[in-house]
């Protein structure tokens, strides 16, 4: 209907047609080749690093440079893992221990995230409440919260509840502060634009405030799952009848360094797995962001 779109379309087709097809695909092929080679190199170097580290550790203990009584030994750790898998742990089958700890961490994580987002958004949107509660929240945040573990053990017993509670407390503050900040940082221009375009309060929240705060909230999920695990494990240290935390405690009490390392390895695997899930979630929810931000994640 107008000169503008014609001109723009011309511009587009010019841009696409001018470079010949061959050079285009040649450049693309070269790029993919280079990228693949780079990926391969990095993976190979990573593996080498791992082999060097573990090999050095093993060799060090065999040559007497490192005392395996204190520092464990890779082959010993491996044996411990095999024993646990095959014969189970002192408290029962290994997978039960993993399931218990994972369940505590996961429940604590979910409850903490939901509470954190709810309160963060509430206070972020309500300046009066934020000012009223601000000092108390800061005070609560400055308490080292793992010290609550014995309290929870007294109040909620040795079951999973006390561990979930500790995980919730640890997760809540991280998510809360991020959600709060995220809501506060929402671009006023975007809010004004949405209002002009006709958004009501709920639409404003769902279409502007939440997506905007999500960048902050998701960033907090990475750290908060590890904190949920810490909460579950520390809770088990303090008093429990099963779980990975108890395994670590038992191993420590019996001077079994290999056992401590083996349990740590299991925890690390669990954390890594959750990290993969959260990263996938992030990719999906934050598709709209420039890739440079989310591509290199450690």
């Amino acid at each position, binding site marked *: *209907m*107008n*000169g*503008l*779109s014609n*001109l*723009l*379309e011309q511009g*587009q087709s010019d841009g696409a047609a001018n470079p010949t097809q061959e050079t285009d695909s040649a450049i693309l092929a070269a790029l993919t080749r280079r990228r693949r080679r780079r990926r391969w190199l990095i993976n190979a170097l990573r593996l080498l690093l791992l082999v060097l580290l573990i090999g050095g550790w093993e060799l060090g203990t065999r040559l007497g440079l490192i005392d395996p009584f204190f520092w464990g030994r890779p082959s010993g750790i491996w044996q411990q893992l095999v024993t646990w898998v095959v014969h189970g742990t002192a408290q029962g089958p290994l997978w039960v221990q993993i399931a218990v700890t994972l369940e505590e961490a996961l429940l604590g994580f979910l409850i903490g995230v939901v509470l954190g987002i709810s309160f963060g958004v509430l206070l972020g949107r309500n300046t009066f409440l934020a000012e009223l509660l601000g000092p108390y929240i800061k005070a609560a945040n400055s308490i080292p919260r793992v010290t609550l573990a014995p309290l929870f053990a007294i109040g909620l017993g040795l079951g999973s509840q006390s561990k979930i509670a500790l995980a919730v407390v640890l997760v809540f503050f991280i998510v809360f502060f991020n959600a709060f900040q995220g809501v506060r940082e929402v*671009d006023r*221009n*975007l809010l*004004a*634009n*949405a*209002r*002009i*375009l*006709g*958004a*009501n309060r709920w*639409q404003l929240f769902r*279409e*502007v405030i939440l*997506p*905007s705060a*999500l960048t902050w909230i998701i960033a907090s999920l990475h750290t908060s799952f590890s904190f949920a695990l810490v909460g579950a494990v520390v809770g088990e240290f303090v008093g429990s009848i099963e779980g990975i935390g108890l395994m670590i405690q038992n191993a420590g009490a019996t001077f079994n360094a290999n056992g401590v390392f083996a349990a740590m390895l299991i925890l690390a695997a669990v954390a890594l797995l959750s990290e993969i899930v959260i990263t996938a979630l992030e990719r999906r929810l*934050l*598709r*709209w*962001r*420039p890739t440079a931000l989310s591509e290199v994640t450690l």
Partner: protein
Amino acid sequence: MQDSQRKISPSLSPALHSAAQEAPSDRLPKESTPVIELRRVTKRFLTPGGQTYTALRDLSLTVAPGEFCALIGPTGCGKSTTLSLIAGLDTPSAGSVLVMGEEVHGTDPRIGYVFQTDAVFPWKNVLSNVAAGPLFRGVPKREALERARAWIARVGLAGFEDRYPHQLSGGMRKRVALAQTFINEPQILLMDEPFSALDVQTRTLMENELLQLWSALSASVVFVTHDLEEAIALADRVCVLTAGPATVKGIYTIDLPRPRNVAEIRFDPRFVQLYHDIWEDLRDEVMISYERAKQSS
């Protein structure tokens, strides 16, 4: 274009009549209720230092139905503030703002606002961005998307529906913002330097396009700009504001014939004459603003 439909505001407040008025009075139509009316509006802001800063003082302005009114003034004088008062995003400290004869309370669905800074939603692709308005207003999804596609094509972005704003150039984002506003078919269109980020060629095209859209919508427009040429080329009336606190310094009726071709009208002798006259007025304000900026730095 329906030149005869364009009305020139009849009801300037008495204070403004003293200002430079060049309109041949026979072109002024009979009394009609203005679409926008600002009555001695004053706006004060609380500065971080705890003092008040007066951005607008006793600003009076009316815009007639279907009129294209350009606001021009030195940077920081209060143009964006004026628009946000009309849009109902902010309230005046004194005086009153009327839209369609009624005092403004909050935002109004009949008003469209193209913001000075980027205000497209970064988490929505082009299609969802343009469809946002109708969807907010309860239009069924299919129809909203259909209309959005039509508008995207109209601003020359066909084929970019799936892109996210960060994947577009600044000028393309501006066009998304225009489509986002126009799709609601506003009766009042507030535009805050909408084309200042565009290159000269695209800008001229967009200006012509705007004139076409305007005549099709028969909307009233308040168009803020730094650029006097742009103001004269587009508007029925150019309103020069003083360096902050802003008040109306002069109102000039632009009696250039319509339809106009923005690219060519700049060579019209009448255009040159108007430019010369308005610049006389504007220059002093720009100098004041410039001197202030120099002193404070």
